């Protein structure tokens, strides 16, 4: 089971500091990014549907 990471043995710089699969913050951000992407894809499909119906009419 994945445990807590103190973050001291991993020194990341730049974007890797906030998006990595070792530190708590990095993992949390990746999870939020994944959920956000799924939500955006679903919203994108929902918003496309009425436009399709209008163009067909």
């Amino acid at each position, binding site marked *: 089971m*994945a445990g807590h990471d103190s973050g001291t043995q991993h020194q990341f710089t730049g974007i890797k500091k906030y998006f990595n*699969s*070792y530190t*708590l*913050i990095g993992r*949390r951000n*990746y*999870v*939020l990014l994944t959920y956000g992407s*799924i939500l955006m894809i679903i919203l994108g499909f929902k918003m496309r549907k009425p436009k399709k119906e209008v163009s067909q009419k």
Partner: protein
Amino acid sequence: MNENLFASFTTPMMMGVPIVVLIIIFPSILFPSPNRLINNRLATVQQWLIQLVSKHMLSIHNYKGQTWALMLMSLILFIGSTNLLGLLPHSFTPTTQLSMNLGMAIPLWAGTVVMGFRHKTKASLAHFLPQGTPLPLIPMLVIIETISLFIQPVALAVRLTANITAGHLLIHLIGGATLVLMNINPVTALITFIILILLTILELAVALIQAYVFTLLVSLYLHDNT
């Protein structure tokens, strides 16, 4: 085996009134509330049992987790006593009903998850991604971990239901087979009877083990979130 195989799993009625609530409450009568410093034998044995179980089960928890001590001990005693009482012939076992087990599993699991998100939001969210995951696998693993989280209460409930129901069905079938074989071939009936005895001993163990497993898993989910 003239009776319907699933007759023991239907809602028990007495003169048209469902008595399932009484049956669920009944095991609590068997556990007296100790109100003296030195109690009678039954209360002392009960105290010893609760101390033994709580010592082992709560040793992994921190202060926050140990606030669930009463809940976890009540859970193991309830499920254990209900399962054991269900082994009596012609009795109704509430834990064979998926509705009841889901009613126990979902609130307990949800309580641990909500507690985790309230007190350790960062760690709870980070749990959805195992440490050291390679970049291309991250989206897939997040989805898989989310699904495995939501499967937990269903697995808890179905595990208990299936184990107890299967055991009762087997006892019913083998008991029926023993009765039928008595007139046909007594030697085979004796072998079947010995199998029935062994199965009953197994079901006694399963009754206690399933109560322990249910409570232990709830305790582990709590430990992950505190």
